[in-house]
């Protein structure tokens, strides 16, 4: 069964600093997709970044970037120049490519950006 593990229940960072959220996953698939979602206090889920497993290049979206290590099954999110608006729950998610449309989430990391 595919599982997603986020080992950091809570993290905090000072405004303007950099923070890295970790995510590992377990799968026997070779091709799949990985996502990071953000859930602010409003509880609206927002896509932050996505990564295709067949791409070696790490995805980047403005201040957000990932470190994708396929062999280690690791998919960490780096937030640079943290802003107060980055305070939210962050969820790592995984979809196997092999015929299943499942979208499985980790338990989340609560990130607080301090002024």
């Amino acid at each position, binding site marked *: 069964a595919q599982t997603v593990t986020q080992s950091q229940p809570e993290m905090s960072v000072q405004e303007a600093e950099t923070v890295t959220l970790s995510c590992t996953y377990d799968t026997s698939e070779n091709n799949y997709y990985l996502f990071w979602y953000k859930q602010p206090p409003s509880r609206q889920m927002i896509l932050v970044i996505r990564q*295709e497993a067949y791409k070696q290049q790490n995805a980047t979206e403005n201040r957000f970037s990932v470190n994708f290590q396929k062999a280690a099954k690791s998919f960490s999110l780096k937030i640079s120049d943290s802003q107060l608006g980055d305070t939210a729950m962050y969820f790592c998610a995984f979809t196997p490519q092999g015929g299943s449309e499942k979208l499985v*989430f980790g338990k989340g990391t609560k990130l607080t950006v301090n002024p």
Partner: protein
Amino acid sequence: SQTIHQWPATLVQPVGSPLSLECTVEGTSNPNLYWYRQAAGRGLQLLFYSVGIGQISSEVPQNLSASRPQDRQFILSSKKLLLSDSGFYLCAWRVQMNTEAFFGQGTRLTVV
């Protein structure tokens, strides 16, 4: 543009009562649909997903069931609610497995 509607936003139900939460999507055809539960502000537990009308995959055996009577309608039901069914329920849709999932506003269910 595509939109997703989920209702009600808040629901308080007594133990043993039935449940029906509805989710509809507009502006797209044959979406993949999902029901998640988020307990106590924590992780999203995948409950059900559907790739087409009448096709339901259950991820967690429990007191809940799901149905997809129309292409863009997804319903979460229970015949008799338990206290443990309390939580925040989210409906989501997406077009393909490699694309972004869009979420509804959620339903906060409290079973008393």
